[in-house]
C-alpha cells in the first residue's frame, strides 16, 4: 500500500511523515481489523466461506449457518475489547515508565486478579462468570499499585526493579492461589479454566460489566496523549510546557492498570499483547502518542483475533487457547529483544 502511494507521488519527496502517513496507517490498521473480524466469525471447528458470512450478516443465511456464525460473536467481541484494553494499556505504561518492557503481565496485575478471584470463589461464595469476573478488577488494581510503589521506592525507577517487584508479588500471591485451589477442587476447576486466558466458552455476560472501564480508560488515554508527548521530552521541558509530570504519570499508570485489569477480568490473563503492540505501533506510526494510542486500539484487537483464529485452526477439532498462542509468539520476541539490551539495564 505504502509503495503504491509513494510511487504515485513520483519525483516529489516520498510520503514519510505528516498527515498523509498517519491517515494511511490508520486506514491500514482499520482494514486489518475488518479482516480480523471476518476471520474470527469465519474460521473455527467448522469453517464457513466468505459468502456464507456475508449471507448471515445480511440476514439471508439458513438457520444452521446463522447459528454457527452467531456462536462466534461473543468471543469476537471479547477479543476486540481485550485487544483494545491490553494494547492501549501497554502503550500508556511504556510511555509513562519509558520502559520498553513494561507489560501488565510482568507487573503482578494478573496474579492480583487471580488471587482476588480465587479468594472470592472460595471464601465469599462467589459463583458464575460475571460475579467472579467482577472480583478480578479490585485485586488487579491493588496489586498494580503495590508493584509500582515497591518498584519505584528509592532513587530511580529501573526496569529490573519493577520486574522483580512484580516477580515478588506474583510469587506470594501464587502461593496463596495454589494453597487455596489445591485444597478446594471446585475452586481449582474454575480457576484453571480462567487462568489460561481464552475467548471460547464465554458469553456476553463477561463483556458488559467490563465495557464501561474499557471505554473510560480509552477516553482518558486519548486525553492524556498530548501530555505524554511533552513528557517524552523530559520532565523539565514538560513542566515548562505546562504539564505536571507527577500528575500525568500517576493518571497514566492508573489508567493503564484499570485497562489491563478490565481485560484480565473479561478473558483471563493474556501475556505479551500489551508488550508487543506498542513496539509494532511505534515502528509503523512513529512516536506521537495520539497516533500511538489510536493505532494501538486498532492493532491490538486484530492481533488478538488472529491469534485466536490460529489457535482454533491449529489443533482442530481441539482449540489452543489464545493466551497460549500469544505466549508462544510473544516470548521469542522478548528473547530477541534481550540481545539488544544495553548493559545491565
Amino acid at each position, binding site marked *: 500500500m505504502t509503495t503504491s502511494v509513494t510511487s504515485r507521488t513520483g519525483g516529489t519527496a516520498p510520503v514519510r511523515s505528516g498527515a498523509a502517513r498517519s491517515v494511511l496507517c490508520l486506514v491500514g490498521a482499520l482494514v486489518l481489523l475488518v479482516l480480523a473480524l471476518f476471520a474470527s466469525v469465519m474460521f473455527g471447528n467448522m469453517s464457513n466461506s466468505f459468502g456464507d458470512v456475508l449471507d448471515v450478516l445480511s440476514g439471508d443465511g439458513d438457520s444452521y449457518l446463522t447459528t454457527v456464525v452467531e456462536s462466534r460473536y461473543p468471543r469476537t467481541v471479547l477479543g476486540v475489547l481485550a485487544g483494545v484494553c491490553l494494547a492501549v494499556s501497554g502503550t500508556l505504561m511504556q510511555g509513562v515508565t519509558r520502559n520498553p*518492557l513494561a507489560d501488565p503481565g510482568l507487573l503482578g496485575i494478573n496474579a492480583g486478579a487471580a488471587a482476588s478471584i480465587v479468594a472470592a470463589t472460595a471464601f465469599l461464595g462467589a459463583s458464575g462468570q460475571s460475579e467472579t469476573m467482577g472480583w478480578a478488577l479490585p485485586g488487579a488494581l491493588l496489586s498494580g499499585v503495590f508493584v509500582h510503589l515497591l518498584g519505584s521506592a*528509592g532513587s530511580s525507577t529501573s526496569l529490573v526493579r519493577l520486574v522483580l517487584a512484580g516477580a515478588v508479588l506474583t510469587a506470594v500471591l501464587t502461593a496463596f492461589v495454589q494453597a487455596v485451589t489445591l485444597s478446594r477442587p471446585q475452586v481449582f476447576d474454575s480457576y484453571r479454566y480462567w487462568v489460561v486466558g481464552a475467548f471460547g466458552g464465554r458469553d456476553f455476560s463477561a463483556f458488559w460489566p467490563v465495557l464501561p472501564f474499557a471505554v473510560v480508560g480509552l477516553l482518558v488515554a486519548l486525553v492524556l496523549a498530548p501530555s505524554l508527548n511533552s513528557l517524552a521530552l523530559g520532565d523539565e521541558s514538560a513542566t515548562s510546557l505546562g504539564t505536571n509530570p507527577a500528575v500525568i504519570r500517576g493518571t497514566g499508570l492508573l489508567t493503564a492498570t484499570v485497562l489491563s485489569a478490565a481485560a484480565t477480568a473479561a478473558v483471563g490473563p493474556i501475556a505479551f499483547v500489551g508488550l508487543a503492540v506498542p513496539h509494532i505501533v511505534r515502528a509503523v506510526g512513529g512516536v506521537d502518542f495520539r497516533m500511538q494510542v489510536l493505532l494501538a486500539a486498532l492493532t491490538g484487537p486484530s492481533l488478538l483475533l488472529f491469534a485466536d483464529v490460529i489457535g482454533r485452526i491449529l489443533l482442530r477439532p481441539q482449540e489452543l487457547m489464545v493466551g497460549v498462542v500469544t505466549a508462544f509468539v510473544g516470548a521469542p520476541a522478548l528473547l530477541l529483544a534481550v540481545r539488544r539490551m544495553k548493559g545491565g539495564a
Partner: protein
Amino acid sequence: MSTDLRKAAPAPADSPRPPRGYLRVGNRIALPVQRSSVVVVLCALAALLVAAVLTLTLGRLGIRLTDLPSAVFGGAEGKDAFVLNRLRGPRLVTGIATGAAFGLSGTLFQTVTRNPLGSPDIIGLSTGAGAGAAAFALLLPGVPVWIGAVLGAVGAMALVYVSTGTGFRNPGRLVVAGIGVAAISTAVIQYVVYVVERDAATSLTAYLNGSLAARSWSDATTIWVVLLATAPLCALVSRHLAVGEMGDEISASLGSDPGRTRTAAVVLSIVLAAGAVTVAGPIAFVALIAPQVARRITRGAGPRLLLSALTGALLLVLADLAAQQLPLFDDLPVGIYTMAVGGLYLGYLLTREWRRGSL
C-alpha cells in the same frame, strides 16, 4: 622501594600465624579450616538434627521422643515402624538431600553469575522443568514424570543461555531472558492443566509446586547418590571459584582457567537442581535463599558450599515440617510454603538493596 616492601610484607617470619588451621590428610591434601566456620557448621548441623527429630516426633502419628533412639538404632515395631520406614523417614531423608542439592546449586550459580538472583527460580529453570514434566505427562503418559522435568530444565537453560548472547554473566539480561522462558513454560503448563481431567490436573499441579509427600526410599537413594557424586566435584570447583572472584586475569595468572571453571560450576549446578527436581518437583526459592542466608551468617566472601548445603537442607526440612503439622490446610505441597516465605524474603532483600542503591 624499601617503603613498598614494608607495606607489602607486614608479616615477618616470627609473627603469629593467622587463626587458621589445616586439616591434613597425607602429604598432598591440606584443607584450610577456620575455627569460626567450624562452629557455624556445627550449629547448623545441630539445628538440622533438631528439625529432623521434630519431624519424626510431632503430631498424632509422631514417634514418642523416648522411643525415638531405640526405634532409629534398634529397629522399630508396629506403628512406629510404619511411620519411620514408610511415612516420615524417607520423606525426611529425601528432604535433607534435596534441600542440600538446591542450596549447592544456588551457591554455584550465584557465584558464577556474580548475581545474587542467579537462581534456578529466577532464570526459568524451575518453570522449564515444570513445562517438561507437564508436556511429557500429556504426550507420553507412560514415561516417568521426572524425565520430562530434567529435559525441560536443560532445554530452558539452553534457551536462556542462547538468548542472552553473553552467557550467564549479565544480571539484567539473565533476569529478562528468564522471564521470557518462564512465560513460554507457564503457557505450556497452563495448557496441559486446562486440557487434562481434573484429577490428573490436581496431581500435576501438586507435583509442579514441589512436594515431598509420599516419597519412598528409592527417591531418597536417587537424590543422595546425585548429592554424594557431585560433592567432591563441587569442592574441587569451589577452590577455583574463590580464586575467580578476584577477576579473570588474576585467577588465570594463579593457574586456574576461568572459562572452564565457570562451565564446570554451571553444569554441576544444573545437575544438582535437576536431581532435586527429579525427586521433589521444582520447589521454589530454596536455591535462591539458602546461599544468601549462608553468606549473611558468615559475612565472608567466597562460596560457602558446605554451609549453603546445610542451610538449604534446614530450610526445606523446616518448611516440610510446617507443611505436615500446620493445621491451616491439609498437607499442602511444601513448595507452596517455600514460595510464600521465599517471596517475602526476596521482597525484603530487594527493598534493602535498593535503599543501599546497589541494584
